[in-house]
C-alpha cells in the first residue's frame, strides 16, 4: 500500500497537472521563444560595441573582445542627436498630449450623452480607422501647403489637436469604453450639488479615468515616435526626426563626415538604431505596466 502511494506521489510530481516536467517544458518554451524574439536586439547590441577588427573576425560572433564606444560617438554626431531629439519630442510629445485630451473628450461625449446622430459619428470614427491615411494624405499635403504649415511641426500637431491624429479612432473607442462603465451615481450627485456637465467631466470623469489617460498617452507617444510615413511627407527633407535620420542614415553619414561613397559598417548603424530606440526603451522600462495592463484595463478587449 505504502509503496503504491509513494509511486503515485512521484508520478504526480513529474507528470501531474503542475508536475515538474510540465514546468520545465513550459519555462523552456517561454525562454527559448523569448530568446529568439529578442535575438535581433541582442545581436544589435553586441555588434554595436564591436570595433572593425571584431567585425571582420569570424571567431567573434557574440562577445566583442573589448568595449568599443566609438560607434555611438559617430552615431551621436551623424544624427545630431541633441538637436534632433528635441525636434522629435516636439512632434511626438505635443501631438500625443493633445490627441489624448481631445479623444478623451470625444469619447466622454459619446459615452455620457445621448447625442443625436451618435451612430453616424461612430460610423465615421470607424471609417477613419479602416480608411488608410494614404488615401487622403495628398489633399492634406496640398491643404497644409496652402495653410503654410507644411514642413513645420504644426502639420503633425494640428490634426492631433482635432482628434484626427495617429490612430485617434482607437483612442476614442478606448475612452468611450472606459467612461461608459463609470458609475453614473457620482455624476448625478455632483449635478445635484450644482456642477455643470463640463465641471463634472473635469472633476469626476478625468480623475477617475487616470489609468486610461496614462495608457493612451503612452501608446500615442510611442506610435508617434515610430511613425515615419506621414511625417516624412509633411515634414519634408529639412526637418528630420530621429527615425527619419535613421532611414536616411547613409546620406546623413556622408553629409556629417564629408566622406562620400563610404558604406557605413553595421556596427555604426546598429549604434544609431539603439540611440533611436533608447528614449522609448527608457519609457517602457519605467512604465511597462501601463502599456501591458492598459490594453486590459481600458476595456478595449470587452465586447
Amino acid at each position, binding site marked *: 500500500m505504502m509503496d503504491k502511494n509513494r509511486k503515485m506521489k512521484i508520478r504526480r510530481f513529474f507528470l501531474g497537472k503542475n508536475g515538474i516536467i510540465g514546468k520545465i517544458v513550459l519555462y523552456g518554451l517561454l525562454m527559448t521563444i523569448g530568446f529568439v524574439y529578442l535575438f535581433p536586439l541582442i545581436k544589435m547590441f553586441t555588434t554595436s560595441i564591436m570595433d572593425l577588427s571584431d567585425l571582420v573576425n569570424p571567431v567573434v560572433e557574440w562577445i566583442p573582445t573589448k568595449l568599443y564606444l566609438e560607434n555611438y560617438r559617430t552615431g551621436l554626431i551623424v544624427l545630431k542627436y541633441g538637436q534632433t531629439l528635441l525636434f522629435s519630442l516636439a512632434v511626438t510629445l505635443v501631438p500625443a498630449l493633445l490627441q489624448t485630451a481631445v479623444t478623451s473628450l470625444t469619447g466622454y461625449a459619446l459615452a455620457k450623452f445621448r447625442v443625436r446622430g451618435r451612430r453616424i*459619428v461612430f460610423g465615421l470614427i470607424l471609417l477613419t480607422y479602416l480608411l488608410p491615411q494614404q488615401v487622403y494624405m495628398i489633399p492634406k499635403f496640398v491643404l497644409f501647403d496652402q495653410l503654410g504649415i507644411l514642413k513645420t511641426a504644426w502639420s503633425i500637431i494640428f490634426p492631433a489637436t482635432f482628434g484626427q491624429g495617429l490612430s485617434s479612432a482607437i483612442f476614442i473607442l478606448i475612452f468611450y469604453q472606459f467612461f461608459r462603465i463609470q458609475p453614473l451615481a457620482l455624476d448625478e450627485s455632483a449635478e445635484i450639488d450644482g456642477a455643470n456637465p463640463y465641471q463634472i467631466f473635469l472633476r469626476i470623469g478625468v480623475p477617475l479615468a487616470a489609468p486610461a489617460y496614462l495608457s493612451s498617452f503612452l501608446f500615442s507617444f510611442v506610435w508617434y515616435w515610430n511613425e515615419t510615413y506621414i511625417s516624412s511627407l509633411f515634414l519634408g527633407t529639412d526637418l528630420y526626426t530621429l527615425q527619419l535620420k535613421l532611414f536616411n542614415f547613409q546620406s546623413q553619414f556622408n553629409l556629417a563626415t564629408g566622406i562620400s561613397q563610404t558604406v557605413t559598417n*553595421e556596427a555604426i548603424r546598429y549604434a544609431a538604431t539603439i540611440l533611436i530606440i533608447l528614449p522609448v526603451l527608457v519609457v517602457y522600462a519605467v512604465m511597462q505596466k501601463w502599456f501591458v495592463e492598459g490594453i486590459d484595463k481600458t476595456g478595449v478587449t470587452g465586447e
Partner: protein
Amino acid sequence: MPEMRAPKKPMKREKRMNLVGWSMLLPWTIGFLVFTFYPILTSFRYSLSDVDLDGAGILVTFVGLANYRAAFSSAAGFAFLQSVLDFALEVLFKVPIITVFAIIIAVLLNQKIKLRGFFRAIYFLPVIIASGPVITQLANQGAATIPLVEQMGILDFINATFTPALARPIAGVFDELIVILWFSGVQILLFIASLQKIDRSVYEAAMIDGAGPWESFWKITMPALQSMVRVSVIFTIINLATFSENPAIQHIKNNMFALETGFGFSSAIAWIYFVALALILGIVVGLLSAFARKKART
C-alpha cells in the same frame, strides 16, 4: 425633479444634454470635416483629374478615368499592382503565422507561472520599438532571421520546390521570421484578455469528464477565442497594410513627386489600394465567419 420645470431652464433636459454632448464633440467634428472628410472628397476628385503644381498654386483638370486606366496599363501602374499582389500574398502567409503564434504565447502566459510580468514585458517589447526604419535596419543587416534558417538550407529548398512567384514570398517569410513575430505583441495581449474571461471551473468540469488538456484546448479554449481571432486578424491586416515600409504605400508616396505620374495618379492608386484592402478584409472576415458557423453546426 421640480426644478427641471422651473422657468429658468425652459429647455428640456434631453435637448440640453444633446447640445452639451455636441459641444464636446465640436473639436472632433471640425477636425473630421477639415482633416479627413474634405481630403477624402478631394482625393477622389484628384484621382479623376490631372493635378498640376506650379509656383502660384494648384491646377486641377478633369480627365475622367485616365488615371485609373494608367494604373492598369503603365509601367508605374504595373509596379504598383505587383506590390499590391505581393501584399495580398504577404497577408496570406503572415496573418496565420502571427495569429497562431500570438495564441500559443497567450496560452503559455496564461498558465500559472512565475515571472509572468517579465515574460509578458518581453513579448510586448517589439511593439514599442518596431518602427519602419528600425525594422529595415535589422532586416538589412540580417539580424531579423534565425541563423539556423540559412545553415539548414531552407531557402535553397524553397527556391527549388516552388515556382518563383510563390518562392519569393515564402522565402521572405523565413528571411524575416523574427520581425514577423514582432508584429504579434498587441494580439498576444488581446488573446490573454479573452483567455482570462474563461471560467476555470469549465476546465475542471471537463477534466472530471475525462477530457485531456489537448481536448480542453480545442473544445473550450479555441471556441472562447473565436471572436478575438477575428478582431486580431483585422488588426493584423490593417497594421501590415499601413506599415510604413509596405511597398504598396511606398508606391503611392513615390508617385506623388515622380515626373510622369503626379498627384492625380497617386490618388487613383491610393483608392485602388483601399479597394484591394477592403476586398482582402472582406474575404478574410467572411471566411472566418463561415468557418465559425460551420463549426457551430457540427
